[in-house]
């Protein structure tokens, strides 16, 4: 039974629960609802909630946990002696998974898959016809594992359907059995709803756990295959699919930092000066349209900046700066990406700085102006020093943005990992390499793919540290004047 149909049935049971629960409550007091503790709909609601919610939680949990159990079962069936040279059991499992998916596809089309499982050759050609390309013919133990995986999958699906329906019915019966005029249905509904609200707030925690777990788990996997000291201290990045790669993060980090520094050199003066002008000089009406206009820059998707770098800024820099000055002839360069990223980051600097400058107490300005300082002297010697911690926080937040940015560097910075000082040369960044190592068909057992997780972990830690420092600084600063 498909999950959609199962959900519909459970929803139907819940609606039935609502109607029956409500009727039962009313019937017990012979229509005199004043004798009920709660209004009749509450009796219906609590019954419906008890029917549907546990069943849906069961389905979700089952679907998440199912692959773990199934794979272990299939993995145990693979005969280690039959493994082709250089292939781990996990690589074979990837094949098993693909064959099983292909067979399911064939079955969905109405083909008979029984005879295919008996003959590896026929299976291979049938799967090729269905768009699942296998390198070699599956070995008998792979086939056995595939069959086991499929059997277990079907059994598990059936068991899940049964369990979910049973749980829904049990919830319904339990809900109905509790109904009597003294039952505090309103309080029970409230408590139930409260637990639901709390569960949804856990999604945020689970997301973080998911991010950290997936990054850590695969990174540990990577560091088992590739020495960590090489990864962190080698200056050569040369992945070779087929083994013998050098995967040093230093050239990537260098590219990332170089691009980010150029971006900040562009964004900080422009953003800061705009913020100062808007906060201290601009009239109310100018501010009302200039501020949103600058913030549009933050609302534009990064792919748009990427295309802008690729099509407009890159060729422009190459034709008017790099080539005439003999600095290189690549249209993707650190300068291109840095410049465009700088434009993107301007509003992050300006908006936050603007807020922070506005939070400096007016009395400080009045004092300075009263002593005869000009407005610019007041800004430079009183307002900015007072706002400095907050501005540093804003710049750090902008830096974390720049370091984590992907599309602009993918399209503007190039793909060659280099340790060079020339800003007109193409270099690459951590994010670019995460994209290039993980797109396309990849096997999750080679260090060339797994390195992306280690890169992701580095990136995550870097931006997290910057964000935390920035937030602490900004918060401290805010408290100072509140």
């Amino acid at each position: 039974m498909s999950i959609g149909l199962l959900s519909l049935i459970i929803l139907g049971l819940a609606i039935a629960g609502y109607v029956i629960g409500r009727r039962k409550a009313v019937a017990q007091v012979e229509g005199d609802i004043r004798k009920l503790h709660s209004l009749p709909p509450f009796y219906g609601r609590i019954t419906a909630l008890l029917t549907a919610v546990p069943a849906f939680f069961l389905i979700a949990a089952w679907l998440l946990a199912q692959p773990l159990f199934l794979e272990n079962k299939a993995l145990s069936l693979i005969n280690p002696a039959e493994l082709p040279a250089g292939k781990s059991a996990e690589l074979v499992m990837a094949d098993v998974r693909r064959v099983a998916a292909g067979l399911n596809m064939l079955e969905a089309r109405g083909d008979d898959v029984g005879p295919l499982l008996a003959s590896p050759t026929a299976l291979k050609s049938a799967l090729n016809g269905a768009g699942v390309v296998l390198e070699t013919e599956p070995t008998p133990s792979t086939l056995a594992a595939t069959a086991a995986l499929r059997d277990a999958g079907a059994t598990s699906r059936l068991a899940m359907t049964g369990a979910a329906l049973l749980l829904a019915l049990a919830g319904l019966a339990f809900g109905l059995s509790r109904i009597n005029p003294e039952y505090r249905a309103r309080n029970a509904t409230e408590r139930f709803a409260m637990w639901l609200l709390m569960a949804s707030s856990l999604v945020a925690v689970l997301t973080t756990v998911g991010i950290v777990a997936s990054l850590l788990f695969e990174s540990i996997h990577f560091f088992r295959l590739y020495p960590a000291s090489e990864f962190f201290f080698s200056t050569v990045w040369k992945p070779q699919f087929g083994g013998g790669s050098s995967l040093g993060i230093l050239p990537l980090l260098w590219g990332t930092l170089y691009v980010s520094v150029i971006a900040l050199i562009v964004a900080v003066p422009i953003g800061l000066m705009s913020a100062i002008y808007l906060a201290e000089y601009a009239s109310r009406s100018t501010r009302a349209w200039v501020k949103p206009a600058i913030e549009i820059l933050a609302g534009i998707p990064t792919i748009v900046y990427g295309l802008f770098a690729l099509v407009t800024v890159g060729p422009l820099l190459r034709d008017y700066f790099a080539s005439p000055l003999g600095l290189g002839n690549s249209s993707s360069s650190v300068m291109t990406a840095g410049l465009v990223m700088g434009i993107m980051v301007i509003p992050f600097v300006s908006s936050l700085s603007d807020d922070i400058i506005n939070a400096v107490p007016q009395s400080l300005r009045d004092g300075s102006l009263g002593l005869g300082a000009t407005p610019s002297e007041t800004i430079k010697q009183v307002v900015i020093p007072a706002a400095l911690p907050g501005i540093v926080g804003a710049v750090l937040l902008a830096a974390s943005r720049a370091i984590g940015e992907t599309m602009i560097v993918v399209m503007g910075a190039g793909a060659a990992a280099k340790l060079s000082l020339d800003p007109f040369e193409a270099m690459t960044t951590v994010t670019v390499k995460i994209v290039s190592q993980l797109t396309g068909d990849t096997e999750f057992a080679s260090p060339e793919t797994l390195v992306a997780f280690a890169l992701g972990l580095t990136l995550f830690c870097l931006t997290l540290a910057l964000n935390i420092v920035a937030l602490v600084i900004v918060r401290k600063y805010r408290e100072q004047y509140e």
Partner: protein
Amino acid sequence: MTARPLNPRAAIDTRASLLVQDPRTKARNATEKRFRAYGLSAIVVALLALVWLLISIFGNGLPAFKQTFITLPVTLDAALLDKGGKRDPADLAKATTVTYGKLLASSLEADVAAKGLNLGDMKPKDLTKMISEESPATLRNRVLADPSLIGTTIEVNVLASGRIDGYYKGRVTMESAALDKNTSPAQLALADQLKTAGVMKTQINPGFLTMPDASDKRPEAAGLGVAIVGSLYMMFVVLVLALPIGVATSVYLEEFAPKNKFTDLIEVNIANLAAVPSIVYGILGLSIFINFAGLPQSAPIVGGLVLTLMTLPRIIIPTRAALKAVPPSIRDAALGIGASRLQTITHHVLPLAMPGILTGTIIGLAQALGETAPLLLIGMVAFVRDFPGGPPEGLFDPASALPVQIYNWTQRGDPGFVERASGAIIVLLVFLIAMNAVAIYFRRKFERRW
């Protein structure tokens, strides 16, 4: 006894007065003016960058909405297209696009001859290259859908090849055509004659919004259909999941949560999630949803789930602000006349906070719509020509997404795709502007101050 001057220079300049400034005051005032000019020029630079960006995108992209078409009378010869003569669909399907391509070319040749146009140094068979490789397939589908057309002469409106189209958009010139093996100056000269004869026209191309992607050599036929459907599916998933979970989380944190370590943990989490680079969400999607839970690659459901997790903090933060803005007196009044806490919230607080919640949700959705990097990692870059099925099964079919389609087109060789990518960005920006306009409208219309 004279007072010692504070400033030695002021003493030297005896002309200083209220009306005449001394040099030091002048210098200070000049610094003031300069400083102000710096600020103003920073704003001007930022705004100019915005204008430059928009001009560059619109300049490159607007031509994508127009396309060069060739209008031809084509006689659908039954002897060629239906060898069995029984109009049997299986028989009709045997006539391949190659046959239809030859048919189109000979029709164009006949038309050129009838109009008495000068072929130049071209052989008649070179005419095939002036018609898009996609056109025979379009014609074939039309005939297969309506076999009664066979044997009649119909007027067809076919796409001209990418190079001819590029000639009218300024991408291809006579000089570049001479070096290009896909076209020739003679073709372009003939195209000019066809244009004067009214056979060839550059007109609005609705196919750009409705057709699926096309292969590497056919930029003229590439459209955004699948990408728009895929993006809509993903936005649907995000809306259905992120709005209820986001509102529930905000209600819990604002109205119910006790102040303890656990609540603090959730708050810190949400603040940090908002700042995690989007590519990290892509890694999460790849390892949890695809590798662990076994969902299919390139499917809108996976994209929607990843974007949901990304959008959640962006919905929670404005929703909490909206809930905070509802005055406590409203809660007190509802509780005072006997409503429960949940009733207070669902009957009074949420409806009053709704405009703020909706504004935040729409802006969060708009950001999710433009997000590219996480989608690259979950396989949305795949070349997809088939429209996904209707929901809910269609959510599991492979599809593309607007921003990923743009990225995809920028990676292709033919220069015609740059125009397509810029055109697609205009479509994306139109969606974003529309969404933000709705958000601003909500805010203006329902905003309430207590």
